[in-house]
């Protein structure tokens, strides 16, 4: 069955979401994936637009889309479609039993692994951070021997950021895991597995309970279960009679794993087929239309046909764009990306400059229908649309818009292929 209505290349958040949208509208959808998609290790939250180009925090991300630069992907999609996309995402999370919270029109401030706050838009209930600002006692919980989360650093930074009348304390839970040279370091995933067990649950509650006062919120690393549901959160909140808030964290982050599982589950229920390890190496474009794409493995090339194609292969990190000295290319349709020949002009001298990075904004240029354009401004193929991180014109890191651009452009592309504007 190498022919589909919509063929999606890439199974990160934009590829999976586009698949869900098209499959919901009755299309036969196939995903060609090479690797699991960087979504798996990401924070699992939907940042839509956190800061303006000038670095001012955004209150209403959908409204602020009206002011973005014309080359920004949001300028091509428009805020009405953006809102539809985000609401559809919320609907999917609801149906899958892992409802996200938040509104497309309001940013939330969520704690990070170092005790700062970052703006985000739609988050799982495990990151419902509003309570942090309302509650008088904050208890930061770390785990002895767990890597990459330092409760004392979080506490210190929170004290700088929050009202001084709050009590902010830390407590380290003893895991009592076997520990030594012959065993693996302990990550958030290991702790999440432990909290899913009866023994882990009981031990956590016993150790933490004495430190809970009236009106306490717990801040902890993302360890509240590996699957897209709220079983661990709900049972702990019940037994401890307080709220728990996970911070956004470093890979391997279980929050991204939960989101991946949820989107895959939704897509598969609707008959989306995923061909794994399918390395797409090229495309056949005839008379301005893409006929097929070609995969290659250790055996032979295979040709996959479709009426419509969505390119969701990601940026340089995900392998969707290939960087060489003085050149940047999209490798499947072989689109040359216009960059300065002198590599030093790709970036500001200061890596952590207080403005967007130049290299971060490089990507495939598209027209207002997300159809890729050559360096000369000609359509590459009229039945191909580019979504997510491959797109040019935005710096997700600076403006906090990564998963938002992915969802919103994916929605626009898939819905347009299904005859919706």
């Amino acid at each position, binding site marked *: 069955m190498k022919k589909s209505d919509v063929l999606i290349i890439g199974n990160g958040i934009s590829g999976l979401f586009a698949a869900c949208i098209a499959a919901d509208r009755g299309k036969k959808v196939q995903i060609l994936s090479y*690797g*699991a998609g960087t979504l798996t290790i990401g924070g699992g939250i939907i940042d839509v637009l956190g800061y303006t180009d000038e670095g001012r925090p955004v209150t209403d991300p959908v409204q602020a889309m009206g002011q973005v630069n014309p080359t920004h992907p949001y300028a091509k999609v428009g805020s009405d479609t953006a809102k539809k996309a985000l609401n559809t995402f919320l609907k999917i999370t609801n149906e899958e039993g892992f409802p996200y919270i938040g509104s497309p029109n309001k940013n939330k401030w969520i704690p990070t692994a170092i005790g700062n706050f970052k703006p985000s838009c739609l988050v799982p209930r495990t990151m419902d951070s509003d309570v942090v600002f309302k509650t008088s006692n904050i208890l930061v919980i770390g785990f002895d021997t767990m890597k990459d989360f330092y409760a004392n650093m979080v506490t210190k930074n929170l004290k700088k950021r929050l009202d001084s009348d709050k009590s902010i304390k830390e407590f380290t839970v003893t895991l009592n895991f076997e520990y030594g040279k012959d065993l693996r370091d302990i990550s958030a995933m290991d702790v999440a597995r432990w909290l899913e067990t009866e023994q882990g649950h009981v031990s956590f509650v016993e150790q933490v309970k004495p430190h809970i006062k009236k009106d306490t919120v717990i801040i902890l690393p993302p360890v509240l279960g590996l699957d897209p549901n709220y079983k661990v959160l709900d049972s702990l909140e019940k037994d401890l009679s307080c709220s728990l808030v996970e911070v956004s964290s470093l890979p391997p982050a279980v929050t991204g794993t939960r989101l991946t599982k949820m989107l895959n589950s939704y897509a598969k229920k609707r008959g989306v087929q995923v061909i794994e390890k399918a390395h797409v190496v090229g495309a056949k474009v005839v008379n301005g239309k893409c006929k097929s794409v070609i995969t290659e493995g250790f055996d032979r090339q295979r040709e996959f046909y479709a009426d419509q194609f969505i390119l969701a292969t990601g940026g340089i990190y995900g392998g969707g764009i290939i960087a060489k000295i003085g050149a940047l290319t999209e490798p499947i349709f072989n689109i040359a990306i216009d960059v300065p020949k002198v590599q030093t002009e790709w970036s500001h001298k200061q890596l952590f400059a207080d403005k967007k990075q130049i290299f971060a904004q490089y990507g495939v240029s598209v027209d207002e229908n997300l159809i890729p354009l050559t360096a000369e401004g000609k359509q590459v193929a009229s039945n191909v649309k580019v979504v997510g991180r491959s797109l040019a014109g935005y710096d997700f890191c600076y403006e906090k818009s990564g998963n938002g651009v992915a969802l919103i452009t994916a929605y626009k592309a898939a819905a347009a292929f299904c005859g919706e504007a």
Partner: protein
Amino acid sequence: MAINKQHAIDPDKCTACTICITACPVTAATRKFRGPKMTGPALTRLRKLVSDDDPMLDYCSNCKTCDLVCPSGVPISTLNMMAKNEYYKTHPRKSKADDMLAHSEKMGKLITALPLGSTFANLGVSIGKAFNMMGAMGITKDAKMPSYASESFISKFKKIKQTSYPRKVVFFSGCYINYNQPEVGVDLVKVYQKNKIEVAIDENFVCCGSPMVSGGYIDDARVNAAKNTAILKAWVDKGYDIVTACTSCGLMLKQEYQELFDFAGMSEYAAHMYDSIEYLAKLNDEGSFNTDFTPINKKYIYHAPCHLKVQAIGRPSMELLPLIPGIKIEEADAGCCGISGSYGFKADKHEIAMKVGSKLFARIKDSGADLGVSECGTCRLQMENGSGVEAIHPLTVLRRAYGL
């Protein structure tokens, strides 16, 4: 643009993104394993500088889930296998069973050559278990071991009368089908004949070497690879396609040989290699697949073996089996079964293997399916062992649907 296959063994392509850790079933089951990123690419870089001393490598089951999820195309599991083989050059083996499990063909040959050999061997396995001889050898007493057939597939094959057709394939049966489940090989011939394909076999084929590589006997695997490569290339030169009905044999012959060894002709024959169901799916794409089925009113649950998933061919069984009228079939989609060929038979790995497979077992039980379906022989054994539900090869389902 072609993939430079020789270049595939490059740990520096790893960006340390940790995706493999999130997906590795063994990492999830035990903290005794450092995880694919660490034992694979990270330590491979160090191994270039210092001598290797990493007993944790033994925990990698070579299921290849890490390779499947890696966005950078790093052959993580193969890096692990190469390091494991180096390790055993200078370190003693943990268990006496390693040799036996890695050389399953030797055992199969011996047993099926003796009169009543299989009866005594199967009896031997149960007596061995009863007296805990298996335990002394390092084989778990808790797993259901493969039993031996009274007649090998090659012997059965010779008795089958085939109609000659222009489309011809050579079937690499592999040890499991040849010595343990010859009926699956017969199913293949019957189903292929129904689809106007003539099946040839070659008695000179030897074990593909997959269990040898996983067990740390790469030098033995190299000898077998040299033999098989020459034979496979010769069949392809004669115009035959190659099919396998065991996904581990298939993966070994077409991919792992190219990653591990350097014999002439490997990529040429690999271009003509197919999984047995994939080959039928190709016929379906061409419009020549025979769908003259009688209805099957049963409920099946399909488990995709890890070694099939990593072949980039999708789920050909889930394309073809739903074409049978009346059939109810769903994919388990519950990850690795845990057995990984011979991994789960080892005494010190059995518990890990059962833990890895526990999600799949629960899924099979909850599905209320009459039968499990999977392309891999040891996956089927593990499915039966863990869930109590019988499991069969998709070729067997097709044969029954054809009423053969």
